[in-house]
Each structure stands twice: as structure tokens, then as C-alpha cells.
């Protein structure tokens, strides 16, 4: 087990290096001169050639590509991701608060999504084909089908303007979380509870359920066993879900004026703030790798069978 853990963790590094190289390489493929972009991003009304030369030198753009990459990589190891073209501030100072804001939203939503998905998944599985199962499933269809942008506007109109219960936007109080978290939850629960339901249903036909029932185990206990076995698939799905939400909150952040990673990344892309885009992609890539590894390790703990051979 310990050996496996170490191996899995060791494999993370080469993947991160590959991600970092691809990120750097792709951004450098862009046909634009970063010095010019920097000057445009800083709103300088008229950009002269002298100014461009001066900026190129400051940025160290005259080094060969591979040298630039290694310099950048070495800096990254020390958590120095360069400085933003637009503000001139260290990238980390820009990304950190945004990342934390989005993380708050993501973590809170994920917990609710996991809880609600398991609840609905179990209810639907044990009532397969009955009214409750059908109504939950059709309701989820309707909700997934609604674009979150539209649903969000509708909910702000109803709960903030008409009922005057919640703020329309921003993150000034705990109440501010209610609407964005609900919208994120609605768009993901509909997918994830199905995963639980399906895997519970496939487990229902397993021998251990049959024998459990035959030996007179109470139905509640059987459900618990079912759940534990069905969770494996779900854990992988959920662990992939967290980075997906992390990178997928753009629309929600835009409409709720949430100062998070989504708004920052879109803004940076529009202004071509390369250092921020690079770090954003790297961060997101890293979180996919980390959560993937995490889900493997959790499954390993839950299911001894998977540990065989290590």
C-alpha cells in the first residue's frame, strides 16, 4: 500500500512537467509579440517601436525558447509564476485570491452535490421504476436542460428582486453563496446521482446481495453494503468533478459577479495576459492530476482487491 502510494505520487511529477511544457509551448506559438501585448494591456494609447524594444529587453524575450522555458520552470518550482502583463503584480498575488474564492464555491458545492447525489441515487435505486424514481429522473432532465446562465438570471429575479431575500450578486455575506451554489449543484447533481443509481442497480444483481437477503440481513444493512460497493465508481467521478467545477464556473462567476478564477481567466485571455493564462492552465492541470491520484488512493483504501499486485 505504502509502496503504491509512493509510486502514484512519483508519477505525478513527470505529468506536471509535461503539462507545464505544453502550456508554455502553446502560449509561445501565439503570433503576437508579448512586449506589444503587455503595452496594449497596460492601456498605453500609442505604442512606439522604442517602447517595444525596451519592453522586450525587460521581459527577457531575447533568450531562446528552451532557455525561457527552463527559467520559467525553475521559477515555478519556487512558486514564482512571473508578473502579470496588465498589473505588473506577481501572478500568484493575482491568482491566489481568485483561486480561493472559486475554491470556496467549489468545495461547498461539491459537498452538497455528493450528499444530494448519494441521497437521490439511493432513493431512486431502491425504488427503481416507481413514481419517485421516475419523477426525480425527469425533474433532473428538466434542470440539466436549462442553461445555467438563464436559470441564474431567473433565480436572481425571483429570490433577490421579487422576494427580496438574497443579494443579487457579489460575495459580501454568507447569503451570497446560496444562489451560485444552488445553480452549480443543480447542474451537476442531475448527472452524478445517475452514476450512483446505475452502479447501485448493477450491484443489486450481485451474489452478495442475494446471499445477504437469504441469510436474513435487514434491508438497511444490505443497502449500506450496496452503497459502499457503488461508491467506488462514484469516487472517481466526483474526484474528477471537483476540478471540472473549478474550471467550469466562468458563467456562474460572470453572472454573480464572483471574483474568482473563471472571471480572472476570461479577462486574462481577452487581454492576452500570458503569465496569468499559463499559471491558470498549469494550476487546473495540476488539480486534475492531484484529484485523480486522490481518487485512486481512496479507492485503494476502500477496496483491498485493487491493492493486489502492488
Amino acid at each position, binding site marked *: 500500500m505504502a509502496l503504491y502510494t509512493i509510486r502514484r505520487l512519483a508519477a505525478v511529477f513527470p505529468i506536471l512537467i509535461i503539462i507545464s511544457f505544453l502550456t508554455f509551448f502553446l502560449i509561445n506559438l501565439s503570433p*503576437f509579440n508579448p512586449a*506589444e*501585448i503587455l503595452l*496594449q*494591456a*497596460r*492601456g*498605453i*494609447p*500609442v*505604442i*512606439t517601436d*522604442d*517602447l517595444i524594444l*525596451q519592453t522586450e529587453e525587460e521581459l527577457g524575450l531575447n533568450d531562446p525558447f528552451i532557455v525561457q522555458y527552463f527559467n520559467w520552470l525553475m521559477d515555478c518550482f519556487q512558486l514564482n509564476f512571473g508578473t502579470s502583463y*496588465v*498589473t*505588473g503584480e506577481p501572478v500568484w498575488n493575482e491568482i491566489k*485570491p*481568485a483561486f480561493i474564492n472559486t475554491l470556496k464555491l467549489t468545495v461547498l458545492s461539491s459537498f452538497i452535490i455528493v450528499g444530494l447525489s448519494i441521497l437521490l441515487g439511493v432513493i431512486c435505486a431502491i425504488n427503481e421504476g416507481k*413514481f*419517485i424514481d421516475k*419523477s426525480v429522473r425527469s425533474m433532473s432532465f428538466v434542470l440539466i436542460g436549462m442553461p445555467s446562465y438563464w436559470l441564474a*438570471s431567473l433565480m*436572481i*429575479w*425571483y429570490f*433577490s*428582486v*421579487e*422576494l*427580496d431575500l438574497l*443579494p*443579487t*450578486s*457579489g*460575495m*459580501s455575506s454568507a447569503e451570497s453563496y446560496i444562489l451560485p451554489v444552488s445553480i452549480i449543484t443543480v447542474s451537476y447533481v442531475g448527472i452524478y446521482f445517475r452514476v450512483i443509481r446505475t452502479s447501485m442497480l448493477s450491484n443489486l444483481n450481485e451474489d452478495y446481495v442475494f446471499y445477504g437477503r437469504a441469510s436474513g440481513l435487514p434491508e438497511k444493512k444490505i443497502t449500506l453494503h450496496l452503497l459502499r460497493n457503488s461508491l467506488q465508481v462514484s469516487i472517481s467521478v466526483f474526484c474528477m468533478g471537483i476540478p471540472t467545477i473549478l474550471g467550469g464556473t466562468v458563467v456562474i462567476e*460572470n*453572472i*454573480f*459577479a464572483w*471574483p474568482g478564477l473563471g*472571471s*480572472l481567466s476570461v*479577462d486574462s485571455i*481577452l*487581454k*492576452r495576459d500570458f503569465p496569468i493564462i499559463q499559471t491558470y492552465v498549469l494550476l487546473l492541470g495540476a488539480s486534475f492530476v492531484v484529484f485523480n491520484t486522490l481518487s485512486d488512493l481512496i479507492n485503494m483504501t476502500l477496496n483491498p482487491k485493487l491493492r493486489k499486485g502492488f
Partner: protein
Amino acid sequence: MHYKKITQLSLLLLTIFTLAACSSGDDAKAENENENELTYAMTKDIGDMNPHLYTGYMAAQGVVFETLVENTEEGIKPSLAESWDISENGKVYTFTLRDDVKFHDGEPFNAEAVKKNIDAVQENAEVHSWIQLSQKITETKVIDEYTVEINLSEAYYPTLSELSTTRPYTFLSPNDFKDGGTKNGVNGYNGTGPYILTEHKKEEAAVFEANEQYWNGVPDVKKVTSKVLPSGETTFLALKKGEINFLFTDDRGANSIDYESMEALEASGEYQVVRSKPMDTKLIAVNSSNEDSPIRETAVREAIWYAIDRKTISESILNGTEQPAGTLLSKNIPYADVDLKERGYDPEMAMELLDKAGWKLDEGSGVRTKEGNDLNVTFYYDSNAPAQKTQAEFIQDSLKNMGINLEIIGEDSTSIADRRKSGNYELLYTRTWGLAYDPESTISAFTDVSYNLHSTKGMKNSDELYKKIDEVMVTVDKEERQSLYDDILTMVHDEAVFIPITYGGMTVVAPENLENINFKQTQYELPFEEMAYREK
């Protein structure tokens, strides 16, 4: 059995919500009637407020920082400088400063502070090359505590109006300087203006409170909050709820809510919509130096000019918020009241011009040809501005009827700037600099490669044009200046290298009981200090 209960409960909740929605129609407005505050929304953060650089939001910088002189409808007026004197040769400007002004941090505003600020700007002159004055200041001298002298390398008539722009010649407390300057950032934002920046939550909100020591009278509106709301839908709902109560056209000339929403707000009786006079011109810049394109021909450019129905654009697309434009600069711009050939909407004239120029329309084909080439033209616009797209589509359709195949492409503003600079375009949606900067900024941009050089270079008398532009900036004689502007504006008008569409301005949505909503000579700022709530 208990599922039935759940279903019943949910139905009950649904009914309650629906009932509540029906009944709560007019509760919303009663709330947020905060008498002495204004909260406005904008799509981005106020940014770095450093008044000597360009990333900050001008409307925010404008209430915190001030200039020596102010550009008003009646011309240049005193602001931080009480009076000034221009030497005979036009090279020395001597300003007498007000002696009752203090920076927000208590530091006195005096000649020394003026020198430090102007020196800090000049230290970074390359960045300010758009403002010609930055290339001409040779020295700033302190004469006595409240007298300061600015020396220029040559006479330059727009000096005072360039000193009046929101940036860069504005004044920051020298205590906020970093390493003795401002080009590498500043430690604070203490200006002399009517409002003090008291709180800034990045990407969320900024709070400006009235400066109780303000030399020009303490503002009535005690607190102005700038809130970041990127999405127009939310902005509209926040206005309805009263979380924000003010809105104005942003620095890209875009409004975050559409005209229907504004009308709905006005109709509710809680808001008023106020529009300024024309401040800038939305236009199509034509790349006359593009050798491979049919638009190098004046006739084709003129035909496009005649083919555009500006009245419909103004009334149907822009709902009357902008007026049809017949000239590059509107007549209320200084020196721009020039007699120019009328070119209205006249599709027949457009066809005639094209026929005469040899662009023939064959039966059955929709596109005119000349010497085997089709009349294809490409038009670039800013994809983030919804009104531009609609206009581009409308123009595309109008030109189709003339036998011109117009391809329209929306790109982000950075790409548009790249095209403008490299000359990689045929037609480009753009606008003039605006009231406070014109005519000089728009005209001097004719010679600037990152602005409109490609548009003017293909004119047959371009060398003469550039000579006149050089002259007009340094002439001290007012009449001669007028006659040079007459020539310049006539030349570009006759060659149709800038095809005007509409005159734009600022639109403000404000609480119904707010008074004194005035405008400045610029579409980038608003005088919040003059506004006041009506007594009830």
C-alpha cells in the same frame, strides 16, 4: 406513504413561492433609498489608480485626481491653477496655483508638488507619446511657493487642453511616490479631487467618500460606490432591487444594459435616463493604402458612404441614443464647424458612382466586377460590442443591394488594434478620441502608425496633408489654425477615408430624484461632485 408527504410538501412550497411572487411587486423599491449615496456598476475593477499610467478606470481617477486647468464647453478654465500666462513665443507657460488646496493625506498642494508630478510623468515620456506635450516639455521650474513654470521645446497650441486630460498630467501626493517617481507603481492614491478612495476590494467594489476639505465646495453626494458587475442581466436586476442605483456608458462606449431595459427602468418611475451631447463619432476607417483592395479607389469609398442608411441605424438599431453622423467630427468640436460636401443616404448615387468607376453588375450575379475581380470588401468590428455587430450586419445587407460583397468579421479589441497597426484590414469599425481630445488627437492620429496612418497614406495628397497636420499643431495664430483645420478636414472628407456612422455620447441611468446630472467635455468621466438629491 411518506413519499406522498414529500410530494405534497413540495407542491405546497411551490404554491407559497408563486403567491409571494405575485404579491411582492412593489416592495423592492421602498428599500435602498439612501439619500446621500450613489452606487454604480461597471464591468471591470477600477484597477491600478496610478494617475500617471493607463490601467486605471478613468471615471474613478477623474473624481480623485485633478488637473491644473479644466476643459469646459466655454474653453479652458482654471482648476488647480488660478491663472496662467503664456510667453510671446509660446514656449513658456507660467501657472499661478491656488493656495487653499491640500492632498487627501494633508500634504499641501504647491509648486514643488506640481514639479515632482510633472517630472515623474516626463521620466516615463515614451509611454505618453500619444500626448504630444510629453515630447515637448523640457523643464518644469518652481518660481515660488505657488508659481510654477513649464518650458517647451517649441510653441505648441494644444498645451492647455492636453494639460486638462484625465491623465497623465494629474497630481498625486508626493508621499505616495515610489522610489521618487510613479512609473514603477505608487504607494497610495491621494489626489486633490472631490472624492477620496477609502476602500477597495479588488474585483468587487471601491468606495469613494466626499472630501470634506474640498476647495471647490464639499459634494452633496457623500458616498459613491463602484461595484463590479460583469453581466448586464445582473446589472439590470440589481438596479431593480436597488442594490445599485446609477449606471453610465463605460470607457469603451458600451452600455451594460440594453435600450429596452433602460426604457423599462425609466417607465417604472424610479429612474431617469439622461443623455449627453455628441462627444465622439463612431465610424468606419478605410485602409486607403491597401494596394490589393477595391477600396483604394475613392469612388468605392464614396459609394459605401452613400449606401449606409444612418437614420435607420440611429433609430432602429440604437433606439435614438446616437445621432446620424455626416462628418468625421461633429460641429460642436472646436475648429470642426467646417463646410463639407453633404453625403446623405443615396443608394442610386452609390450605384452610379460604382458604374462610372467601371464596377459593372452583370445580370444574374449579385456582385459587381471590374477586370475580372469581384467587389469583395472585409469589415472588422469589436466582437465584444453587441451594437457593432448589428450595425455591421445591417451595413452588409445594404451593400449587398449595391452589388458589394461585404464580409464582416468580429474580433477582440486587441486583435483589432493589431490590424490597425499592421494595416491588415480594409474597413475597420472605430471611433474618434472624443470632445476633450479633439480635434488635435484624432487629427494627429492620422500620422500615427498605430492609429490611422494606413487610412490616410493612400490619399493622393497625403504628403500635403501630413505637412498641414505638422503645421497646425505648432501655429500660434488662431485664424491660421482654423484655415489649416478647414483644409485637413476637407481633404479627408473629400477622399472619404473615414466614413462616419453616428455621433455617440454618454448615457446615464440615475435615481429619479437626482439633480444636476451634468457631463464633462469627455465621455470617460462624470462630475459626481455636482450631483444632488432633490429635497422631498
